[in-house]
Each structure stands twice: as C-alpha cells, then as structure tokens.
C-alpha cells in the first residue's frame, strides 16, 4: 500500500504529510510532524491526553485517522500561545499550579479552550462533566477546576 498524501491545516499553517491508511492523527502529529505537545496516553480514547480541536470540535487525536484530517483545520496545544505570551488558559494553569506530572496538561488545556469557546461562563458542574474525558493520573482535579474558573473570568475580563 502506497502512503496517502494528506493536506491539512495545523494551527493555521498549511501542512502536507504522508501517512499509512491505519495511522492515527496522533501518530502523525508526534512521529511524522514532530509536534510532541499532544501527548499519548491510552490510545483508546479513554484518557484525553491527545485532545486536539478539529474544525473547532474537541476530539481525541488517537481516534482520528490521519487520513481523515484531510481538508480539516486542526488546532493543537502548540497553537495556543502567541509571540506575545501564553494563552490565558495556560497562564491560569500555571498560576493555580494545576499540573503535577504534566502529561495530561496539554489535553486539559485544549479541552478547556473548547469548553470556554462554547460556554464562556460555565458553572462547576458543567466544567467537571465537560472535562470528564481528560484523566489526571496525579488526581490534581481540584486545582484544574479552579484554574478553568479563573481562566473563564480572565477571558471575560481581560486585564
């Protein structure tokens, strides 16, 4: 089987790559394109470490074939910070120490972005259910929730 040529957009940049038919978007992001910000946890869609946005919709990159990304817009954790600095969600995760080992953090930040893009002022229950697909093995959930709440405030009322 010849490799498939795919054209996509990653963090606003046109990207072309070659992939095997059964390769996941996660494998291509990390191993082919060297964008290792997106983490591999379970590779079965249970842990959320590989969360990315596909046309603005939160998905697990491990459950998307790389070939399926053709013609779609992918946003990864690398797409959040700008030259001006960290994204407010990243800043609030730092300020609240909402990370311990850090493996779940990129996925949680991308999932939080998807949440706040749709629900700018979520209550705690909404936050907890929305993020239920992102597992933190260090069980640092409470600080994560506080960081998300503060990020929502910060995005609503930029300093």
């Amino acid at each position, binding site marked *: *089987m010849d490799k498939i040529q795919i054209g996509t957009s990653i963090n606003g940049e046109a990207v072309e790559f070659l992939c095997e038919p059964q390769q996941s978007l996660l494998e291509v992001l990390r191993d082919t394109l060297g964008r290792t910000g997106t983490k591999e946890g379970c590779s079965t869609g249970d842990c959320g470490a590989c969360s990315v946005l596909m046309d603005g919709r939160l998905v697990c990159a491990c*459950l998307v074939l790389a070939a399926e990304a053709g013609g779609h817009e992918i946003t990864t954790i690398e797409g959040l910070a700008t030259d001006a600095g960290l994204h407010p969600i990243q800043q609030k995760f730092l300020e609240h120490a909402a990370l311990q080992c850090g493996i779940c953090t990129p996925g949680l930040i991308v999932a939080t972005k998807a949440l706040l893009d749709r629900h700018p002022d979520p209550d705690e229950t909404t936050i907890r259910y929305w993020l239920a697909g992102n597992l933190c093995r260090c069980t640092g959930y409470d600080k994560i929730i506080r960081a998300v709440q503060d990020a929502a405030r910060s995005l609503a009322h930029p300093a």
Partner: protein
Amino acid sequence: MTGFAYHAPTSVAETLALLGDHARAGRRAQVLAGGTDVLVQLRGVDRTPRALVDIKGLAEVNRLHVGADHVFIGAAIPSAHLNENAELARLYPGLMEAADLIGSTQIQGRASVGGNLCNASPAGDTIPALIAVGARCVIATASGTRELPVEAFVTGVGRNALVSGELLLGLSLPRPGAATADAYLRFTPRTEMDIAVAGCGVSVTLDAGGVCTAARVGIGAVAPTALLVEAAAAALVGTRLDEAALNAAGAACSSAASPITDKRGTADYRRKVVGVLCRRAVGIARDRVLAHRA
C-alpha cells in the same frame, strides 16, 4: 505493505461499489463513521488488515431532516451535533439523553448514533432509546433501499443485519405528537464515562384524560441484544400509568431480561435494576407529556 487501505467515497453508489468490489475479491472492508469503536478495535482486539471506508463524505449519512411525519437522522452525524439541536431535544428528549451519555466530550464530537447501532454492543445506550421511539433503519442495498425496525437490526453481540455490500444510511423516526414523549435511563456506578449496567428507553402516548393509549419499552445491557418488551407496553396501555401499571411494566422488563454476571453487576441485580429503570423512565415520559399540557 500493511494490507490496510483508506477510502473516502463521496456518494452512496460509489460506497456500495467499493464494498461490493472488496466482498467479491474476498478482502475485508469496514465502514468508518466517527471511528470511536472501529479505531479502538483496530488497536486492540481485532488488528486484521482491512479497507476502511470512510462514509463521512456522503451527503445522505450527514442528512438531518425534521419532516411533518418523520425525522431522518443520518447514520454518521456525531452525537454532539444532535445534542446541540434544540428541535431534536424537544422531540426526542429520551433519545438525546441516551446519545449524551455515550463517552466523553471528545467521543461525542465523533461518535454517531448509526455507529452505536452498527457496533451492536449489548450495552449501547442509544439502541433501547431508538427502539422506544420506533426508529427504523434505512439501509442502502445494491437494488435500492430497505428498512428494518431497530429491534430487528441487531442480531447478536457485535452483529447486525447488514449483509455484505449494504450500508446503513440513517434512522427514520416517527415524529411524535404533543401527546407522546420518551425517556431513557441507565444505571452506572459513576455518573459519567461508564458503560450501562442496565438501560431502559420508553415512549408513552396519553389521551386527553391521561390514559395511556400507546407505549413502547426497550431495554439494554440485560441480554445479548437490546430488546423491545411488548409485555411491558401492554401493561401500560389502557392505564393511567399509576403505580400498579408501572410495577407491572417493570416486572415485565425484569422477566424479559436474560443478563450475564460480570464486573458491572450480577444477573440478579441487573434483572432487578432494569425493572426499576422502566418504572422511573415511564414516570419521566408521562410527566413530559403532562408538562406539554401545562
């Protein structure tokens, strides 16, 4: 050479031709919608090379149409899209509750009701809910289309009634009037990210005096396939859905169940719980009809 292939056809005819070509050549082909079951199986229990036929480029399987008599839900529409549709939430709150229970936000962004049905897990949440609302499968065949009620579509654990070269296009649901409402309940030890120990979908129709004139009850995770429980519906029709009727319907669900014992619960426990879920779901559906009238 991996033996895998990826196809992204753009029409139903092209898809059927592809599936037919692979079948005639003795090659395995598998339809891919959201991929949240297919890719997991591909990484784990079933790594056999195959052609993956991605149907998301087909207009028909992405079609959502709310008509005067029927609603069509394309087989590949992600459940998140369905749950964001206010009209569907109003017409089929039970079915949308079931779709909303499947997996995480990430999973719901991809997973489709059609895929949940084709995957044919005994615990698939949307299957009893689809049975309750009287959904029919619209299947593309080499010679046209055929329809099957959902309760006849799933034929066993992980098996469905599609024959080689066929494709599930979507689901056709009778559009409920104001006197009809559905509900779905499942029991899981956790409130999120879990698989049903037992599930029950119901739909009831009440006349102006509050007497139940029609009912459908579907149960899941308590038998190799989700089941339509006609005896439970019979226990409800003609009553005012009082406690005795609810108890009789619950008992009918418990006796229709043939559950297994596994880490999620014993067979006895599941049999009991499915009856409780039925009673409660009928109460919710009844209250929804009454709320329409308030």
